[in-house]
């Protein structure tokens, strides 16, 4: 029994370690959020509570700007829905693996299901056994702690810190995602998916489209799925 506990703890540590580059990569954004919130007149408790309860990254930054500009509640909520909409896709993708797990696992991992945790969910056995659930808890939980810590630093010291978002820490996100995607390009449909996603996302980003990410994702999935159908029909 004791041994089991150690194994699960090890799995959680492994998850946290794999998440580390991503946890560090969002430091500038956490600090930006914390300091921006204080600048816009939020109390430190409100700012910290936002990170602790919502855990929403880009949504939080957009929301505080909108709240500070006295936007209507509906505008704020609609913007949040637009930016967060890609998470529906993550839940749908992981549905078959997670829907039979106990409620406490679904609630906690659901709460922690960010882009970053989804990125670490590609393993064949992801979420299928207890060890893998603890791995995800370690990965998602450590990212949650990091995001709240960066927020706290931003609240307390944001006024004294330079803008770190130009430092290039976000390259760690790109490198991690490359590490997760490239080894899985083993079939033509997956290659087509990646190429379409790359071209579409860059095109939409240069056009400044708010829904560019999810549109590029769905377009690429359609391309990969179609290529797969075509491959099997031959």
């Amino acid at each position, binding site marked *: 029994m004791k041994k089991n506990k150690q194994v699960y703890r090890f799995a959680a540590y492994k998850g946290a370690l794999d998440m580390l580059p991503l946890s560090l990569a969002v430091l500038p954004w956490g600090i930006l959020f914390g300091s921006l919130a204080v600048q816009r007149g939020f109390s430190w408790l409100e700012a910290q509570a936002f990170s602790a309860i919502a855990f929403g990254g880009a949504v939080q930054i957009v929301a505080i700007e909108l709240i500070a500009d006295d936007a209507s509640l509906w505008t704020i909520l609609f913007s949040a829905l637009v930016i967060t909409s890609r998470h529906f896709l*993550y839940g749908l993708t992981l549905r078959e693996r997670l829907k039979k797990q106990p409620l406490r696992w679904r609630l906690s991992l659901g709460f922690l*299901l960010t882009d970053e945790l*989804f990125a670490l969910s590609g393993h064949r056995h992801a979420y299928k056994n207890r060890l893998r659930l603890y791995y995800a808890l370690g990965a998602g939980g450590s990212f949650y702690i990091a995001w709240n810590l960066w927020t706290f630093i931003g609240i307390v010291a944001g006024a004294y810190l330079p803008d770190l978002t130009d430092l290039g820490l976000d390259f*760690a996100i790109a490198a991690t995602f490359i590490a997760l*995607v490239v080894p899985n390009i083993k079939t033509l449909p997956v290659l087509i998916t990646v190429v379409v*996603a790359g071209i579409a996302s860059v095109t939409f980003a240069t056009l400044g489209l708010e829904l560019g990410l999810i549109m590029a*994702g769905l377009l690429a999935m359609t391309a990969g799925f179609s290529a797969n159908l075509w491959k099997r029909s031959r």
Partner: protein
Amino acid sequence: MTYITILLVAVIIFTSRYLFLEGKLPIRLGTNARDFLSFSGPAVLTAICMPIIFVKDDQLNIAISNPYLGAAIVSIVAAWKTGNIYWTVGLGVLVFIVYGSF
């Protein structure tokens, strides 16, 4: 009022993450839907990652001086040859720092 707004935003975010993990939700994913969703990983990850590398201030940046580009190529080769996340991130970040310091 601020707390209510924060709470409502939190509810929207949590709903978007949790909704489809709920087994009681009356949807069944057929073979085609599962096939389609099997491409979501590479599709979304690539769609998040490529604009970081290629786009700066809404502009396409394919200049040789773009440190993201050189470092990304090193990462792609490292991922392809080693298949290891630590090598890929380590080498990429190293090249990124060296590249950026010129």
